[in-house]
């Protein structure tokens, strides 16, 4: 009874938000219809609650209460702030594609195409009335209320095509900047990578000083062809009271390597859910996810890995360092399809609790329909080792510095998984910012 009531309330409020936003959302005809369908899909459940199994530990109705109104189109002041933040990212020489408050900022971005790389703003593609497939840009293979909500509201994002055999010299770098308080941005990017391509993709989430209590809703849909290599690095440093609800939907071809790293230090409420399908044989998936959380931050890292082809390897490692009353969630699900013989899939969750009140929920799941597979999962939860702390302090390190060194050691292995020196340094700097702000 209560549930139904809550549903209608949220639904009704959102109906208004959607109606108000509709005029501003790019895309006409089929796109508008797809948005309406997506919104209807979302409205059937509303913001997910703990009663939806996949969202059991991240009850958004409770944590978010509502979807904030759509962020206004960024003005000159917002763009100027964003420019400054982008400059300060220190990511070295990357091809920057900047999205400010959910809107692609052409002036801050490098739209150079060439060397097999083509880049477009999603809004332009949705508005392209000559394209028969434009509505597909908003569709996805995963049914989930937050993905549906994103399809309904997505204002902008990137459409990146990487041709067969391409090996762009610079990493592609999508930067999300939030500049305003109490608004929501909905972004959606699609990346299509051909065969025999080698690509590095970076995603950063940053916030200007004034951006508080905002919501970043993002979906990335990625296809990787055969014999390719995608190195993916995501660093989320949203404001500590913001929400970041993001999805990656990745399809991996044959004999391909996909190495993805994500670091979460920001966001009062965050979820990064990845749906990765290993669709071709002999591919390799490595995921390293790190949460560094404090105060009352709630971070959720969810993976659904489908082994849908034989002889693939997947390794998921999740590490969380939790201080104060922070709460981390790790859900890892491996589905091994019947055809996926010789699957080797393992996941591991390691947590370091710096406070008695910090909390971690681990939910590993294996669903195996093939008989010749190796799958496993494990979890460790612990505090910093007192004898190591004392050793360091006896060598002159003050308490916080000794803790910081051990925390760095704890996340170090994950950082090592980043192949590029420049990008590893970016992740290390973000981790260091977190450690320094503890002191």
């Amino acid at each position: 009874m209560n549930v139904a009531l809550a549903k209608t309330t949220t639904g009704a409020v959102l109906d208004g938000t959607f109606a108000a936003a509709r005029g501003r959302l790019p895309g006409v005809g089929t796109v508008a219809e797809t948005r309406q369908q997506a919104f209807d899909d979302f409205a059937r459940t509303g913001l997910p609650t703990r009663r939806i199994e996949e969202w059991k530990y991240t009850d958004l109705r409770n944590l978010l209460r509502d979807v904030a109104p759509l962020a206004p189109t960024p003005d000159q002041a917002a763009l100027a702030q964003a420019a400054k933040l982008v400059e300060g990212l220190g990511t070295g020489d990357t091809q920057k594609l900047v999205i400010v408050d959910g809107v692609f900022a052409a002036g801050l971005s490098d739209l150079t195409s060439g060397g097999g790389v083509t880049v477009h703003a999603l809004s332009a593609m949705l508005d392209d009335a000559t394209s028969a497939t434009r509505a597909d840009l908003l569709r996805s293979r995963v049914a989930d209320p937050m993905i549906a909500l994103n399809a309904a509201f997505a204002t902008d994002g990137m459409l990146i095509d990487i041709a067969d055999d391409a090996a762009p010299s610079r990493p592609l770098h999508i930067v999300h900047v939030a500049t305003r308080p109490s608004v929501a941005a909905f972004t959606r990017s699609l990346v299509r990578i051909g065969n025999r391509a080698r690509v590095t993709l970076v995603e950063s989430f940053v916030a200007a000083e004034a951006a508080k209590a905002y919501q970043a809703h993002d979906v990335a849909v990625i296809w990787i062809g055969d014999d390719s290599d995608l190195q993916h690095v995501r660093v989320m440093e949203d404001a500590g009271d913001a929400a970041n609800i993001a999805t990656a939907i990745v399809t991996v071809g044959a004999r391909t390597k996909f190495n993805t790293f994500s670091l979460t230090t920001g966001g009062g409420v965050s979820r990064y859910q990845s749906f990765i399908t290993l669709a071709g044989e002999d591919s390799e998936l490595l995921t390293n996810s790190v949460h560094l959380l404090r105060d009352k931050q709630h971070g959720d890292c969810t993976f659904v890995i489908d082994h849908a082809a034989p002889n693939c390897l997947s390794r998921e490692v999740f590490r969380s360092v939790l201080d104060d009353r922070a709460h981390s969630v790790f859900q890892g699900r491996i589905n091994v399809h019947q055809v996926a013989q010789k699957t080797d899939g393992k996941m591991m969750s390691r947590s370091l609790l710096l406070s008695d009140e910090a909390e971690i929920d681990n939910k590993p799941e294996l669903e195996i329909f093939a008989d010749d597979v190796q799958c496993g999962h494990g979890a460790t939860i612990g505090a910093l080792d007192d004898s190591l702390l004392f050793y360091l302090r006896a060598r002159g390190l003050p308490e916080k510095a000794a803790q910081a060194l051990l925390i760095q050691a704890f996340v170090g292995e994950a950082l090592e998984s980043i192949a590029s020196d420049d990008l590893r340094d970016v992740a290390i700097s973000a981790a260091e910012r977190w450690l320094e702000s503890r002191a």
Partner: protein
Amino acid sequence: MTALLEVKDLQVRVDDREILHGLTMTVNGGEVHAIMGPNGSGKSTLSHVIAGKPGYEVTGGEILFKGEDLLEMEPDERAAKGVFLAFQYPVEIPGVTTMNFLRTAVNAQRKARGEDEYLVPDFLRKVREVAASLNIPMDMLKRGVNVGFSGGEKKRNEVLQMALFQPSLCILDEMDSGLDIDALRVAADGVNALRSPDRAMVVITHYQRLLNYIVPDVVHVMSQGRVVKSGGKELALELEATGYAQYEEVAA
């Protein structure tokens, strides 16, 4: 002149059990003191309390370092002021390279003393020099602190740190255990090289042999949480011959 280290009537408890029952000892600058005594007599406990390890309750007495109340200081303050303990069982710290650890530690101490941090090239030169003198290959310093080190390598790593930090009070807890004869000589040479009028050493050992290399000015016998006898270096030879039986009775 104030003594470098004064331990006065020190009483220490662990988990409600008294382990040191009124221990007194004075160490002056330039001196080398040896502490010998049976297993469980409290030698490591004393060294831990001096270094500031948590978990020990000091129920009586005091420890002065250069006239200052050591027990009031955090372990890192003690280190910065020149107290160094070479651990009987050095810990392994995976994920922290020895080099990074050494640099972080040296700079933390320098910062606490209001000195400038080492520049990287200066620091590297210094480490290379000290490591060479102790036969420690630089490759070892690229590994995690003590991770996969042999027992002897761990001990050498302790001496390396001591040589790098240049502390004024060096406590060596069974530095000789696990060292082969050649390594022992190298490590002892490292320690002897540090002997100076304003520095003191407290060498905890079970074996007189170490004291042939590091010749003590004073030898203390500890038994059941007290110093039961002090004497010159000949006391160590005497102990080698007679064992501790007579002292256990004295303490009891």
